């Protein structure tokens, strides 16, 4: 072995060891009980603890310690897949009748924070509420994930500790969606609206005080069903709306844990320089930058124009210029190692916009010319985006790229209050958008963002063949075959420029070294329970 090769190998080995040290749970150290963790929030809880009425990290991250799911993604493993799902309120589960029934066997020693016993009634209540079934006991004010349960025919509770999900057809993904941070179990004896202001959960922590706009305090739940957990006595979430102050508070040690998705590469480098002992872990966020084009209105009802837009944007340039390298290429699903359903780099290179920028732009010009758009007759459009820097930076880059192929786009910033209304109603031509995925699962993503008629299908893309493929992958039981279909769908979506994906964002999740067992996942929504986290302070 040559010296340089040996050096390369040892360097790689070093990186692997460091990476493993960062992401693996602390082995060999006995967890200590006690202490308080000070955790960053960038805004107040959006809808209190009503996770089922919200789709934002600002709700799910601080509300998660109050709740439990039926199952969850193993908190100790950063990657999330059906293989990393472990029990939570369900001790075990079993697929029956060729994946038509999913049976859960519940824990028997679980109590709600108000002392009431947890039973299968609570599970049935929660999922009847979510799927808005005929026997739904109540209605959520807003129900963003109703579609996740559209294949559930009935939820039955044959006895106090057994729950059966009867499905219309096999759907292995259901388990992943049940493991998402967005799927906590509500108490049947509490009106769902109450969760907007207070929280009665079964989780490891009980709400002590929520000072609006200021902080949220939890204390350890002494009756938690896992003996000896949680380790921490309390959690103190502090709302700091100013980014500079948040970073300073973390640097000064007033905060122990950063907000997921908050730390950019530049901020991480600055923090590491100032406080070398900080533990910074690069992880996927499950948030993508993408372009939405209104397929119902000219000029983007033309496939050629949509494709030209996709070809025109230099993804690698965007990653470097806007994210300073803190993002990765990928199509609809997160690429490896951040997800399990993404396309390989080789496959990605075959997609529109992923080749050499100059070649791609030539193709874009050619397509535009075929659609009658030339330098003499440029296409003038209005690009909308949400009026926050995260969106505007990306939109500005895209506008510059489009200009190079003969599309003159002016930027229109839309206030947050209006953004989703504008997108859902199709009151736009083209937009720079961010999409967060609650779980790295094709069903959750594809039905939500690409299915005909879905309210979050902002581009109004609707293809019968793709719908068939989405249904087909959804019930495919062989993971390899399913991956093949999912990859084919992603190719087709990019080839149709349904919602051209630009990148998948990376977070530099930061904690102080005394924070143990808080393993960030490659999905910001699913590791906030804090059940196993302890402090070595």
């Amino acid at each position, binding site marked *: 072995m040559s010296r340089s090769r040996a050096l390369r190998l040892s360097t790689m080995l070093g990186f692997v060891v460091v990476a493993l040290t960062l992401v693996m749970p602390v082995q060999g150290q006995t967890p200590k009980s006690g202490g308080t963790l000070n955790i960053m929030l960038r805004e*107040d809880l959006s809808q209190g603890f009503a996770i089922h009425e919200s789709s934002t990290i600002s709700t799910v991250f601080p509300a998660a310690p109050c709740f439990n799911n039926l199952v969850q993604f193993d908190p100790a493993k950063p990657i999330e897949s059906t293989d990393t799902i472990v029990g939570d309120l369900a001790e075990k589960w079993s697929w029956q009748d060729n994946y038509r029934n999913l049976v859960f066997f519940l824990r028997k020693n679980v109590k709600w924070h108000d002392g009431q016993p947890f039973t299968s009634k609570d599970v049935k209540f929660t999922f009847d509420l979510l799927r808005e079934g005929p026997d739904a006991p109540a209605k959520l004010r807003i129900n963003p994930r109703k579609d996740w349960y559209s294949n559930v025919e009935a939820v039955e509770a044959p006895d106090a500790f057994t729950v059966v999900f009867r499905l219309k057809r096999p759907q292995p993904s259901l388990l992943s969606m049940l493991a998402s941070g967005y799927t906590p179990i509500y108490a049947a004896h509490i009106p769902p609206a109450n969760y*907007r202001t207070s929280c009665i959960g079964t989780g490891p922590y009980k709400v002590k005080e929520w000072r609006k*706009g*200021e902080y949220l305090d939890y204390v350890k739940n002494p009756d938690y069903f896992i003996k000896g957990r949680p380790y921490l006595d309390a959690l103190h979430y502090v709302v700091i709306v100013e980014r*500079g*102050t948040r970073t300073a508070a973390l640097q000064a040690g007033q905060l122990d844990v950063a907000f997921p998705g908050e730390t950019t590469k530049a901020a991480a480098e600055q923090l590491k320089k100032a406080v070398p002992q900080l533990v910074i872990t690069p992880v996927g966020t499950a948030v993508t930058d993408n372009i939405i084009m209104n397929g119902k209105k000219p000029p983007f009802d033309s496939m050629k124009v949509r494709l030209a837009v996709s070809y025109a944007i230099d993804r690698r340039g965007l990653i470097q210029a806007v994210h300073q390298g803190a993002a990765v290429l990928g199509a609809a699903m997160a690429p490896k190692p951040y997800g399990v359903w993404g396309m390989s780099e080789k496959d990605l290179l075959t997609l529109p916009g992923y080749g050499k920028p100059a070649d791609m732009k030539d193709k874009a010009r050619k397509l535009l010319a075929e659609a009658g758009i030339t330098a003499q007759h440029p296409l003038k459009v209005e690009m909308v985006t949400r009026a926050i820097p995260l969106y505007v930076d990306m939109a500005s880059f895209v506008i510059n790229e489009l200009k190079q192929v003969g599309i003159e786009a002016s930027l229109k910033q839309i*206030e947050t209050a209006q*953004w989703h209304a504008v997108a859902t109603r199709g009151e736009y031509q083209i937009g720079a958008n961010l999409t967060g995925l609650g779980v790295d699962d094709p069903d959750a993503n594809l039905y939500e963002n690409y299915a005909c008629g879905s309210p979050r299908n902002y581009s109004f893309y609707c293809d019968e063949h793709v719908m068939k493929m989405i249904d087909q992958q959804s019930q495919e039981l062989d993971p390899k075959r399913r991956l093949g279909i999912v990859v084919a769908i992603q190719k087709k979506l990019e080839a149709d420029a349904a919602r051209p994906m630009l990148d998948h964002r990376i977070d530099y999740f930061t904690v102080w070294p005394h924070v143990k067992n808080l393993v960030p996942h490659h999905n910001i929504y699913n590791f906030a329970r804090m059940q196993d986290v302890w402090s070595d302070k």
Partner: protein
Amino acid sequence: MKTYIVQRLAIALLTLLGMSIVIFALLRLAPGDIVDILFSTAGYISDSEKQAIMKELGIDRPYVVQYLDWLHQIVTGDLGKSYRYDLPAWEVIRPLVPVTLELAALSMIFAVLMGVPTGVVSAVRQDTALDYALRVFSLAGLSMPAFWLGMVIILGLVSWFAWIPPITYVSPAKDLKLHAIQFLLPALAVGYRSSALIMRITRSSLLEVMREDYIRTAWAKGQTGRIVIWRHALKNALLPVVTVIGIEFAFLIGGLVVTETVFNLPGVARFLVQAILWRDYPVVQNLVMFTAIVVILSNLIVDMLYGVLDPRVRYGG
């Protein structure tokens, strides 16, 4: 005097009524409402569901009805319910008021303590090196926005001392020392700007007074410099200074947004911005009305002070 106060209060009431119309109208003119925001956190919008929530919150009613309802709430002391938090608005606003009042008052105290003496020194030592230095100092204060200064203070502290003031509000009852530390720096950051203004007004006003005949007479009678300046000149020079202090205090109540945000103080101003972003009408309307009341009251107090400082001032009936 009594008649004057009654007249002023009557005018204040009319002003508040006008303000209420402006606040109400401006809020409704802003695009979007609370329901759009709620759906925004869910990532989609459904027009039928939106209508149901609007009905639940009462914002589907005609504007006139909503406005009169709000006025009725103010008169009866019930400020309505926060849309965002589903709690009585007063319950949400109550803890914020003392924080902002304390910060504004402390800032003003700093501003007066720094501004008046430096203004006097600058006037007395006109065109000396000290005067130039103090004028540069004050000009810098006017040029630096408080939020920028606040951010620089935070970044400087964390870079040099790896320390910043507490980020969670510490009540004086819990820990007076920590509370003082928490308020000291933001009060200084805000007070510096105001002190610069006060210093310049004090200087120019004092210079004008110093040229008056009665000051020359005082010097001719052999009075000491301290007596001439502090007793005869400054008292008469303070009238415009008091006006500025009143205006600055009123400005601070609404203008502390960024300072409260940078130092993470849970005051009215910071919360107001969040409430506006959420289109939380009951909270915004009442917070702005609160600010308007403080502005009107501080102006009234300033007017009253004129009479104390200058016996020539008479309050007409």
